């Protein structure tokens, strides 16, 4: 599908970058004239994906996180969050609601939220190599524009 605009961001896995990443995604999405609810859905999904890269991918060190924001044909916003961390051995299990390898500060609902707030979610991961989360959301065209 034709890419109409795109931006790539790279940042270290510091938790302060969670709010930066979702705000950047919201700013990029603004060119599609989304509703407040659509922006919030995108911000929430980005927050989950980026937090996972920060919390799980690099448990004992800082590592690189990349976020690609793309606008494709038909008003589709695609977001790719990539890390080069520990990876996920069993992606199906990881995507199960309530499954977590984290502490009690985690609820195991991240992937479930990404799935329900976006139209599509793909997770590709190789243990020891890293994880790529690709999600997309069609932003409705609104009357009057």
């Amino acid at each position, binding site marked *: 599908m034709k890419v109409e605009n795109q931006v790539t961001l790279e940042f270290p896995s510091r*938790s302060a970058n969670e*709010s930066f990443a979702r705000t950047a995604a919201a700013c990029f999405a603004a060119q599609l004239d989304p509703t407040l609810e659509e922006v919030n859905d995108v911000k929430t999904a980005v927050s989950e994906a980026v937090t996972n890269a920060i919390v799980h991918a690099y448990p004992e060190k800082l590592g690189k996180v990349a976020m690609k924001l793309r606008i494709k044909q038909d008003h589709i916003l695609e977001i790719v969050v990539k890390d080069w961390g520990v990876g996920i051995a069993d992606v199906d299990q990881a995507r199960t609601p309530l499954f977590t390898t984290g502490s009690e*500060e985690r*609820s*195991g609902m991240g992937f479930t939220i990404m799935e329900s707030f976006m139209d599509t979610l793909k997770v590709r991961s190789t243990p020891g190599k890293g994880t790529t989360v690709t999600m997309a959301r069609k932003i409705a065209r609104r009357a009057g524009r």
Partner: protein
Amino acid sequence: MPVKCKEEQRHLTARVEGELDHHQAREVMEELDRRIDAAQPRDLTLDLGGLTFTDSSGIAVLIRTYRRMGQIRGAMRVVNTPPQAQKVFQAAGLERLIRFE
């Protein structure tokens, strides 16, 4: 501090403000723990009216706080939940566990 508390005869009200994500969650959780420990409230009202964003980290904070209140046989309710947070909590089925008003 993103948590503001008010205490009246073992009724504790805690207002959480700003963005409750992974970056902020620990501080909020620790403050809530401290306040609950000190006040030993019969009931806790969690006021989310000033919450501008949350994600699954907020789910964990709510569940953990609910359990802490259960341990001391106190009640808990959540009030003024903004739409974005409500959608997150709903996705996790939290309304089956916690009272939202």
